[in-house]
């Protein structure tokens, strides 16, 4: 058959990846419809995208990209250097509504040297530029179609947008004029099933061919046991952490934070909330990254020690705090378990379930919380610990200096060293409770090949997907 139906949990609000944070947008359009100068591969590596190749000046300040020839947008217009300039300038502009505008910080200018060449000039060297340009928020869009991009996205990808039945599904179809290796599938449908039961039922009833980001890990054994299905377990960039409001007493006392760290039984949480899927982490770093250091020992489960630490901090009788939980089940279920575990050492955490909008307003922006659980899914985001105004309010000048150095460093080995140092610093400062790396769980019918197992970024890249013969 020439088509598939892939289900995902959330429906994108619209289809412009450059003006919203919703991951569902990237899931649908990344690489399928829109492409950037560089792109992520399923294993997390960054490879050339619309840019065939590039040259970096010795001072690291000028990047010159050569674009692929003969690339056209789905509406037939040619993709050239002017489009790249338009796209990047739009994202960096004063009135830009790009959710990841910080990706473009430090870009001084973007110029079209000739139709096939673009030059980006930086204010200071940035080792992450190629990585940053691979994000969905940095894809190349066409100025002609920018007005209607939200409902009728026009990109350069191997698929083009066909139809959107709001609340139900989005259809895309093969782009016959694709510049690169064409897609195998003739068409594909993204179906939105938010309810976990419904997800299970739909998969079981074979209403859908695959489910990316399956929301109910407890159902996976049933799929594994069923010869009709295959289960894809990979990793994401999501460090799931128990964030602690470092400025709020008593959490401003490192002993209290350490006590919390030792009160948490990671394995129980992974088993109870994720039914065993997920890798324990001891710091804010993805375990599949070569630079990862296993620091789980630093915050091993030890309730006795935890109580002792609390006593040392003058809180032998425990204390009360709040635990804000956003909607995903890792947070809601994990939160219930953590509240129970904290109760064991005398910390009474009142569970407050919130929706994302509320979480953003009161927790993230208002910093009005004690504890919260959230999965930080942005790749390589340890840099957030260098921002004292970030919601968990960790303010350590040493760490900030370390990050500064890292940003200026391009030598891979030195970078690894610095990264490992950074991981250790936050782990030993017990900034947050580090729980586990969120697993990427997918279910597909047997015979479906080429789906990403890991999720280095939110994407359901269908360009290489096919049915086995």
């Amino acid at each position, binding site marked *: 058959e020439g088509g598939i139906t892939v289900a995902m949990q959330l429906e994108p609000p*619209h289809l412009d990846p450059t003006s919203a944070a919703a991951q569902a947008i990237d899931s649908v359009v990344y690489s399928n419809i829109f492409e950037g100068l560089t792109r992520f591969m399923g294993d997390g590596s960054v490879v050339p995208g619309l840019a065939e190749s590039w040259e970096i000046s010795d001072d690291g300040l000028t990047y010159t990209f050569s674009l692929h020839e003969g690339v056209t947008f789905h509406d037939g217009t040619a993709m050239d250097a002017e489009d790249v300039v338009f796209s990047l300038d739009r994202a960096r502009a004063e009135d830009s509504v790009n*959710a990841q505008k910080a990706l473009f910080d430090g870009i001084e200018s973007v110029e079209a040297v000739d139709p096939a060449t673009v030059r980006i000039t930086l204010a200071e060297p940035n080792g992450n530029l190629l990585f940053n340009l691979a994000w969905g928020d940095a894809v190349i869009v066409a100025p002609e179609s920018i007005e209607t991009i939200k409902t009728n996205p026009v990109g350069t990808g191997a698929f083009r947008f066909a139809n959107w039945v709001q609340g139900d599904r989005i259809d895309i179809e093969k782009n016959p004029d694709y510049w690169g290796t064409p897609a195998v599938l003739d068409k594909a449908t993204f179906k939105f099933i*938010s309810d976990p039961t419904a997800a299970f039922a739909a998969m079981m009833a074979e209403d859908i061919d695959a489910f990316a980001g399956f929301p109910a890990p407890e159902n996976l054994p049933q799929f594994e046991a069923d010869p009709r299905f295959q289960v894809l377990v990979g990793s994401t960039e999501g460090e799931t952490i128990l964030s602690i409001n470092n400025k709020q007493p008593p959490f401003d006392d490192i002993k209290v934070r350490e006590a919390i760290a030792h009160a948490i039984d990671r394995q129980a949480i992974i088993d109870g909330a994720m039914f065993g899927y997920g890798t324990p982490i001891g710091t804010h770093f993805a375990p599949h990254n070569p630079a990862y250091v296993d620091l789980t020992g630093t915050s091993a489960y030890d309730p006795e020690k935890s109580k002792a630490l609390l006593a040392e901090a003058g809180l032998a009788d425990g204390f009360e705090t709040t635990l804000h939980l956003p909607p995903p089940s890792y947070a809601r279920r994990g939160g219930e378990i953590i509240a129970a575990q904290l109760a064991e050492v005398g910390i009474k955490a009142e569970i407050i379930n919130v929706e994302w*909008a509320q979480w953003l307003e009161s927790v993230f922006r208002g910093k009005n919380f004690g504890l919260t659980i959230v999965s930080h899914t942005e790749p390589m985001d340890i840099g957030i610990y260098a921002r004292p105004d970030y919601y968990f309010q960790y303010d350590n000048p040493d760490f900030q200096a370390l990050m500064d150095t890292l940003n200026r460093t391009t030598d891979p080995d030195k970078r690894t060293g610095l990264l490992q140092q950074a991981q250790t610093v936050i782990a030993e400062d017990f900034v947050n409770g580090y729980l586990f790396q969120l697993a990427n769980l997918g279910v597909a019918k047997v015979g479906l090949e080429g789906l990403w197992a890991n999720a280095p970024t939110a994407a359901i890249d269908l360009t290489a997907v096919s049915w086995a013969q």
Partner: protein
Amino acid sequence: MLRYSLKRLLSLVISLAVASLVIFFVIEVAPGDPASFMLGINAQPDTVAALRSELGLDVPKWQRYLDWLGGMLTGDFGTSYTYRTPVSDMVAERVKVSLPLALYALTLSTALAFPAGIYAAARRGRPGDMAVMGATQLGVAIPNFWFAMMLVLVFAINLRWFGAGGFPGWDNGVWAGLHALTLPAISLALPQAAILARVMRSSLIDILGEDFMRTARAKGLSRRQALWRHGVRNALIPVLTIIGLQFSFLLAGAIIIEQVFYLPGLGRLVFQSISSRDLIVVESVVMLLVFAVIVVNFLVDLAYAVVDPRLRART
């Protein structure tokens, strides 16, 4: 009749005006900002501000209220914050699912309830009545979402007679659409049918005790004939009220069922919009639902007059 209709119309307009005020300001109190929600955690404050002004969220509340109200009067429900499409289009799309679902469920529940209620009333106190009443007691007590879960388990997952949910759209044929709505309609209809059957029965029993039923029997009508010719239509008045209430409930109250069967209906639109703080969608849809309820009640009142000539005269 005209006077009556005009008076009802006036109170309808006042109700709507009050409702719009309540809805707008209650919803606007909700914590959470659509712009922040859309831009996520890495967004910079100036980006959020830019989006807020792009969405028109930076004007004072009362002015937004007036704009919204004025827009609605001209059929313009505004533009969704998150989807950036006209709310009216979104609503139109969702109504295509919710309305047929409500009607389907209502048809099912009426088709079940009428015979059951009439049967039980005619057989009052006898085993047939007790069986029907027992069944309705159970029907009233079953939470519809639980029933839906069980239906999915049995008919979608085990027997695979129906899809587990979703809606193919009417483009794929009326039959496919109805097929997809069958399980949701059943799970909505059953508890409603139980209530309706009970109302039908008790209302009919009341009527059976009326003097004119005795008159009818004295004319030579058999019990059955009397029941059908004189009982049912008179019993319809309270039943109509319930049907009206149920219709409005089905239109808006299907939220949970829409969730279970992931149907793109109005209820789920509200739910999604609440969580994404797409306030204008919430406001408009809730307003529309209130409007629908009020209009349905109005129609039910008019239907009374058709059923009951006494009301025709009084009005």
